[in-house]
């Protein structure tokens, strides 16, 4: 009786086992072949041929050949399409060369792209079209640089007080000036100096921007002096030397006053540090002398400091 029960238990188990299993054994290739819709894919490939999309058709026949590698029809189609796409690619490559020789870069590029569309894995074609792209983009760049260099040569006078000058054509450059002006309005002198300087890098003759930069530099130096950053302030003020004179007397006087008072403070600092830290003293005196070239005492002290530094150096050298 026990056996009977155990057999009846075994049967459903076997049923479950069988339902989990596959259909009667067939190699994968056959199973795919059985279930794949070959007709639809062939029809699609043929439609592509009708539309002259030979490479796309070739891809479809490659897939068909993967599904049924024994089919001679697929193999023959593949061979024919491979040959045809190569022929087309060669034709467009030749055409591209003709256009290149005639100096028609755009047409040459389009012909090469057409060649590549028939042979997308052809690296040589890709390199050829990339080289044409390099020529195209480089010519745009050279034209821009010539424009900038040209601008540098001629003096362009800005007209309206708060407007971006009309000659500014590059959107990024004009944006830097706009931003610098905005930051100036907000009292962000550091930001204003930075952005206007960026603009002036390509528009160095723009007087309006130069004047705004002078004002920003003056205000920034004032702020730095107030927070005790004497050396930094000196460097900020020295940047005004690279710009033309301010056209507002108020600004001109303001910058001059700042330079003189800072030169005096730095001279005093230089004298103080002369005995303790000669390197620091030289730094201070040099800045004082640069800020106020008429500061005779600073010049004399600086000369002495250099001489002393030289003597100390030779002592150290002879000692070693």
């Amino acid at each position, binding site marked *: 009786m026990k056996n009977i029960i155990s057999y009846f238990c075994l049967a459903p188990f*076997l049923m479950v086992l069988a339902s989990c*299993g596959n*259909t009667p054994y067939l190699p994968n290739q056959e199973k795919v072949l059985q279930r794949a819709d070959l007709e639809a894919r062939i029809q699609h490939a043929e439609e592509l041929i009708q539309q002259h999309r030979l490479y796309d058709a070739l891809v479809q026949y*490659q897939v068909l050949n*993967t599904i049924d590698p024994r089919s001679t029809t697929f193999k023959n189609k593949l061979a024919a399409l491979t040959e045809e796409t190569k022929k087309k690619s060669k034709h467009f490559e030749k055409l591209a060369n003709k256009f290149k020789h005639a100096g028609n870069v755009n047409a040459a590029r389009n012909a090469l792209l057409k060649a590549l569309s028939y042979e997308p894995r052809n690296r040589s074609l890709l390199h050829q079209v990339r080289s044409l792209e390099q020529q195209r*983009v*480089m010519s745009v760049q050279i034209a821009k*640089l010539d424009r900038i260099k040209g601008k540098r040569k001629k003096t362009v006078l800005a007209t309206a007080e708060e407007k971006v000058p009309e000659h500014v054509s590059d959107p990024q450059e004009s*944006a830097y000036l706009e931003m610098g002006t905005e930051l100036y309005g907000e009292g962000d002198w550091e930001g204003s100096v930075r952005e206007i300087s960026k603009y002036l890098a390509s528009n160095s003759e723009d007087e309006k921007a130069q004047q705004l930069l002078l004002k920003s530099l003056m205000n920034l130096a004032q702020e730095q002096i107030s927070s005790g950053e004497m050396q930094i302030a000196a460097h900020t003020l020295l940047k005004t030397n690279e710009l033309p004179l301010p056209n507002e007397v108020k600004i001109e006087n303001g910058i001059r006053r700042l330079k003189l008072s800072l030169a005096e403070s730095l001279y005093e600092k230089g004298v103080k540090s002369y005995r303790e830290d000669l390197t620091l003293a030289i730094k201070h005196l040099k800045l004082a002398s640069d800020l106020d070239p008429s500061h005779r005492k600073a010049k004399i002290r600086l000369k002495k400091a250099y001489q002393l530094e030289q003597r100390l150096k030779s002592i150290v050298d002879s000692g070693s």
Partner: protein
Amino acid sequence: MNIARRKTATLHSFFHLIAIGFFVLAVQGCTVLKALHLLPEERVSVKGKDYVVVIAGWQDSLESLAEEYYGQESDAWRIAEFNNISEVHHNDEIVIPLVDPYPSAIYSDSYQTVPILCYHRFGKGHIKLSVSEKNFQEQMKYLYDNGYEVISLKQFVDFIEKGKRVPQKSVVITIDDGYRSTYTVAYPILKKYNFPATVFLYTDFMGARDALKWDQIKSMYNSGLIDMQPHSKSHPNMAIQKTNESSTDYKVRVREEVSVPGGHITQKIKAPLHTFAYPYGDTNEEVIGELKAKKYSLGVTVIPGVNSSFSYPYMLKRTMIFGDHTLKQFAQELTTSRDIASSE
């Protein structure tokens, strides 16, 4: 006793036969059920040199197939694109290309283009270089809602160098200079949409009042979403030799402007360097030569336009996004395909 044993043995054999009968019936039954599509069939596949053809099983999805054949789910788009499908259904015939048949994304009458967007500052909408938070949010939402794939610049490097294609509607986001608003305004929005971006830093700016701090840079970089690449040391126009500057001095200056920011970035956050953004977007043979010597893969300009697999890698075009751009203008910049015949 023997008769009893024999009876039992006969009975055993009988039940053996019944069990085997059940088994055969079960197998047959399943075949019939399967033929009637009442039971899900397993996946079957055949692998060739360049393609795998799969008849999808009930458990297959684009992601699972991508994971199996490409090693990463994120490549699911490649299968979707090749088969022109958005999802896998049981019994679908799916072709998985093992070798990309279109590595340059050049097709019979068109080719793929990738716009690289270029931002600067965020937060104030009334000046050109500053895009307001609201506008940036709207622009990112537009990309998200309209099926654009924001890819990293590194992915674009692989596309241009190795022919590793990127999704059809790919867009790259870059942010120049390293303003602090990149962290305070743009980063949270990029995180929300999981959009990668590359920030180009000019290192003399670091430490300024409105510049990014290194801990902010680190935090963004470590998120895996934001890459950091150099944008020169002091933001000069590297393509222009200064008046009274000797050729030797110019070369030294170019070398310094390329190597110093790269050095800072690798030292501070250990980011591998691959792309250099030219200040003002300007470059020349000297600068490009320096980038090649330092093994950079790409250089980005601000020449407006889009890029393709055949773009010159050291002069990629970028689209500047300004504060006064409307959403319509923004959308017009997102060209991701061009006809061969009509392309300039």
